[in-house]
């Protein structure tokens, strides 16, 4: 989605209030820095790069922040800017935020994602490994590499494929968790669950997947969803909260079937 921008061509000056924290168990605090003469076409990270250059010259430690692709797809970046995960604009990641989004003279508060399951490692960098654990619990289709059937032997209706793709766009950044007052990971989990439950390939493990991923999410201390939908609003890919409703239906159906499903008495092994 395209951000609405201040249409200034003039360079601007801003003041940053940045969260500095030396390590996971150290206390953190806000520290003020000036960023002067910023070109409006500069990205927010390019502005931080410049501030870091100045800090380094001044003999101070630069601000640690997570970034990699700088094009909104890897999910590494994770800043809360003025209280909003990924900053002022909808549908973009922090790395896609440009200085033209800020007014000359603005005071900008910059913090890491705040959520119990994502502890701060240093300054603005958090540990989001909990997402890998959820994924390991069931975020896959169990096929071995080998010789599956020809790809076109599994037709998928275009609508289903498109909807699955809408869900699959998740970049795993964790903004949904940071935006939720309960630190719920429902949108992240729902996106993965829905991608597979919309596709024929995902059917055999459908019940097991949703039950296992939700159980793991609970175990890791993510909160519950109270339908505020701050998650979708903060999502850089604008993944719809409809997927949460879809997952809830899947979850209820799976729980029901799990309880009443006839089970085969056969055991593995044999002759």
């Amino acid at each position, binding site marked *: 989605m395209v951000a609405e921008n201040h249409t200034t061509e003039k360079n601007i000056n801003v003041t940053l209030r940045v969260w500095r924290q030396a390590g996971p168990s150290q206390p953190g605090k806000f520290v003020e820095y000036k960023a002067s003469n910023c070109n409006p076409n500069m990205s927010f990270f390019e502005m931080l790069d410049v501030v870091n250059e100045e800090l380094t010259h001044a003999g101070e430690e630069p601000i640690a922040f997570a970034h990699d*692709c700088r094009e909104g797809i*890897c999910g590494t970046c994770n800043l809360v800017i003025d209280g909003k995960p990924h900053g002022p604009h909808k549908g973009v990641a922090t790395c*896609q935020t440009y200085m033209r989004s800020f007014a000359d003279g603005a005071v900008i508060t910059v913090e890491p994602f705040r959520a119990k399951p994502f502890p701060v490692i240093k300054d603005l960098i958090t540990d989001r490994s909990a997402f890998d654990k959820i994924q390991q619990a069931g975020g896959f289709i169990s096929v071995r590499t080998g010789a599956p*059937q020809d790809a076109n032997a599994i037709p998928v209706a275009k609508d289903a494929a498109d909807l699955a793709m809408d869900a699959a766009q998740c970049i*795993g950044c964790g903004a949904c968790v940071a935006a939720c007052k309960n630190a719920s990971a429902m949108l992240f989990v729902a996106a993965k669950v829905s991608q597979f439950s919309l596709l024929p390939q995902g059917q055999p493990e459908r019940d097991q997947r949703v039950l296992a991923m939700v159980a793991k999410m609970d175990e890791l201390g993510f909160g519950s969803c109270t339908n505020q939908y701050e998650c979708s609003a903060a999502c850089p890919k604008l993944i719809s909260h409809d997927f949460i409703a879809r997952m809830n239906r899947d979850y209820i159906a799976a729980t029901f079937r799990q309880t009443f499903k006839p089970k085969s008495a056969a055991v593995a092994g044999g002759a």
Partner: protein
Amino acid sequence: MAKLESKIPSGPLADKWSSYKSGALKLVNPANKRKYEVIVVGAGLAGASAAATLAELGYKVKCFVFHDTPRRAHSIAAQGGINAAKNYQNDGDSVHRLYYDTIKGGDYRAREANVHRLAEVSVNIIDQCVAQGVPFAREYGGLLANRSFGGAQVSRTFYARGQTGQQLLLGAYSALMKEAGRGAVSVHPFEEMCDLVVVDGQAKGIITRNLVSGEIQRWSADAVILATGGYGNVFNLSTYARGSNATAIWRAYKRGACFANPCFTQIHPTCIPVSGDYQSKLTLMSESLRNDGRIWVPKNAADCDKNPNDIPEDARDYYLERIYPSFGNLAPRDVSSRAAMRMCDEGRGVGPGKRGVYLDFADAIQRLTEDGVRERYGNLFDIYHEITNENAYKQPMRIYPAVHYTMGGLWVDYNLMSNVPGLFVLGEANFSDHGANRLGASALMQGLADGYFVIPYTIGDYLATQKPGSRPKIDRSEFAQAEENVRGINNRLLGINGRETVASFHKRLGHIMWENCGMARTKASLEKALKLIPELRAEFWQNVKVPGTGATLNQSLENASRVADYMELGELLCRDALTREESCGGHFREEYQYPDGECKRDDDNFGHVAAWEYQGDDKTPVRNVEALNYEFTKMSVRSYK
């Protein structure tokens, strides 16, 4: 001199891989597989697919990534698609045609047998990815959709909107997570490989630095796989992720692995131009846009500052359509990039600094409507708008070439093993399949081919020669020495306490590389670079400033250690470019061109792979040569006219 045995199987081209795989390759029995430990460094398409597949087979796998999770690797940013010779469109595609397009696209500098294998397994990749739940684009009938890409006259590219790399990577990541969940792979995030451990001439381990705690650790294994991507960030500005780096392959080079064809670098024609001095990265606009966009510059330099919409049709030069009528806007990347450069050199460039050309969708919007264009490319138009604050539905995009991919890399044989036994190299990190130029939508294909369908077979051939349980203990002197080496580098960097930042040195290096060894190279420019780079390197080691300590998360130190490697790699790249006295693919030497500006190859003297062998820090490396024997295809003049 290193021994470079390509191990290409004999027999007809189309049978080589199948008969090799079913006959010549040694197997490891299932009970023994679990006794072998394999280290995989990197979890992009090649690394994640290899780690998952080897674990499925029963090997014990450790996978190391410097990212916080394996899902971040920069394969994720590939937009356009993945090639496969499925011929679903019934437009005359075949394994042979994909092979031929790829080897021709690479300007006849890749091995025939490798490229043919790649084309063969391309079809399995699509099957595999669909089975994993990758949501490829579909037609209304439910079948897979295709589009066309540069360098091909058939529609063989599979895609998932403009996020194909993301979807394929998440597919491989999900397979990796499946194996991690059952304990078959242990994943080590934030763990950056800093050295390779060679014991009795064989790769038997690595040294890593934990980027969070700063701890330096030793890891031993029966074999080591590097799948750490390319080295394009030696140019500083590129479409790579900022963290993409060459440290793993470079340090392996310094342990004896040959570096092949480093001068084969790809400059992608359609990127968003540089906007200012602060620029930290360049963003690609997918090549798929060239299916519907038309590239032009004003005929008259005086028109360059005008609003493009005010420039009449007959005052525009659609130069790709004019010069290459049969491929038009879909000419291969190297050809298109150089054409853009020539237009700007003639003074007909547009935008800031006059380094840009137009990519115009006005005709496509007429034909397909604005919504039709939005459906195909909406996310790309949005990215363009985000970055430039311009609406490409209303005025043409401005694009310019940027460093995008490196075809060179560590030398590997047909088994993807380097000349250091036990060290395997996959994906962009190796040199093997793209020759002097990679075609669009072929990188994803190669990464997954290597990881899913080649290494699972070929690694057994090496492991079968190793006694189960024979991997060395980490208290051996080779491990201690390698660990000391890493500590030494980091302590030196932290101790200099100079006056210039790492980023500033990186910028200066990138500038030297781009100016002298970029899209067009000459003997004089390369000799100049070979003088400037060692000077800059000496200055770096005297004057770089790396704040903080090694015992915590320290991004300055991470960058300093990567830039230190680029300072050496850049020199090798220029040396290779100077020695290769011909033009081919992405390597364009101005002295060797046809009157129309096309590449003039010299097959007699340079129809070979140059594999550089490290001799010590201040010594000139040795240039080994592997002859390319074209038995089945004629090396001909590559023409897209």
